[in-house]
């Protein structure tokens, strides 16, 4: 199928879909987009995550790999605290 990525390492997907891909460990560059022109939607990302878990956990663009789509696997490195208390600061 036509890929939305490739040219200049571009993935055509909303920032929210790209972030979701990282959260779910999906390499968004390898997701088939169902949107116009092959745009990758959040739904595409979710089905890719459900559909094939093994490719999703493959290393998706580690440090220094800036040639490919800039998708980074969520590693949760050194997490101290998670979201949820964003408002406590006020």
């Amino acid at each position: 199928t036509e890929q939305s990525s490739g040219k200049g390492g571009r993935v055509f997907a909303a920032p929210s879909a790209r972030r979701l891909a990282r959260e779910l460990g999906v390499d968004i560059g390898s997701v088939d987009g169902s949107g116009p022109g092959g745009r990758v939607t959040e739904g595409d990302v979710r089905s890719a995550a459900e559909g094939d878990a093994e490719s999703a956990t493959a290393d998706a663009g580690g440090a220094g790999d800036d040639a490919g789509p800039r998708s980074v696997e969520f590693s949760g490195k050194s997490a101290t605290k998670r979201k949820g208390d964003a408002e406590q600061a006020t």
Partner: protein
Amino acid sequence: MVVGDVTTGTEVLVIGAGPGGYVAAIRAAQHGLDTTLVEKEAYGGTCLNHGCIPSKAYITAADVAHDAGNAEHMGIHADPAVDLMGMREWKDGVVSQLTGGVEKLCKANGVNLVEGTASFKDESSVRVAHGGEGQGSETLEFEHCIVATGSRPLQIPNFDFGDEPVLSSRDALSLETVPDRLLVVGAGYIGMELSTVFAKLDCEVTVVEMLDDALPGYEDDVARVVKKRAEGLGVEFNFGEAASGWQETGDSEAQGASGNRTQSGDGIVVTTETEDGEESEYDADKVLVAVGRQPVTDTLDLENAGLETNENGFLETDERAETDVDGIYAVGDVAGEPMLAHKGSKEGIVAAEVIAGEPAALDYQAIPAAVFTDPEIGTVGMTEAEAEEAGFEPAVGKFPFNASGRALTTGDSEGFVRIVADDGTGFVLGAQIVGPEASELVAEVTLAIEMGATLEDLAATIHTHPTLSEAVMEAAENAMGEAIHTLNR
């Protein structure tokens, strides 16, 4: 008296409170991280104190005066007088409101503020030297560190910012009077913005630039609009010349590497040289050197943390904004081009969120950039040439502001919007905008690029009439061969 060295610990240490650092610190604190921000000079960094903000304040004030003095065709007759000290005070008020705001926001979000200069002791602690000599120091241990030490103006040989007639951009933004004649070295965006300001304040401005055009890096037809307007304001351009030295007028002895000192105010002569060694001389009262900026790392003792800069002096980072050293991040000007405040802020946010364990990354598709000349420039994403290079078959659409009702009613209708898209899919790849409010108009196209929007999406979105943003829609329509208010090619 040296105060005993106290050691405290923090989860996240941020060094430098510019738009890279303070944004990182606030976001880290918002994520519940114990965060400390060290700043040696002033909250807000270059941007708020000596860069973006003061320059834009001067641009506004110069515009108000200049526009009113040149509106006879609109039936408005005025002969405005500008009092530079008054302008400076207003600007200083704006700056202090914003820097005060940054400090307040940091505190309100729970960021610990420390004043002083940080340098690495090792890869998990810094020494912070307070204030002046003998003000003591403290050691801060960190789990994660974000380096955001920014940049400073480049100096060129024989032009020492310490000498009174030699101005950095920072000096130019705190002059007490408008010089009669200003020589500007460098026609990059900072040189062009300040040349425009001073020309509008009735200063005689001459620009010398080593390269062969103004605004290197921008496409010819974009730069041309700005250059033409500047020339209309009386700015004289000399390309292919590098400034090589200066001396005081009447001073027979050529001044050079030995350093210069001005006693009297009776002017200077600046010498330039072409590649072939041809010399020219320019009379001036001040010379503004705006040839670029360099990263600031010399206060950091990087080697103690195992950090190294690259050949251009920058700290290299990955798409998580992390350096080669685990747990040490770098953001903003110190982390490389483009040296823009919003790039730094984005990196700061990503670094903070990565530290907080969020799936953040520098995965943006495009960083917009603006030049606040007259008219403004706003660009984002790819030019036509860049799109071709990246393997796209570009579809390009253009809309001239002289066909925009809104532009005509603002009295400012030079320039155009150009949209670059992928022909097959219609995906929007970039825009080059030169004209009124270009800095604002580029926001919509940036969103389009990030969203993976197509030309059709831009064209189908209703745009308010009469606005300049209609030009974005029309440029997209033009790329599709369907513009209404301009002929389609």
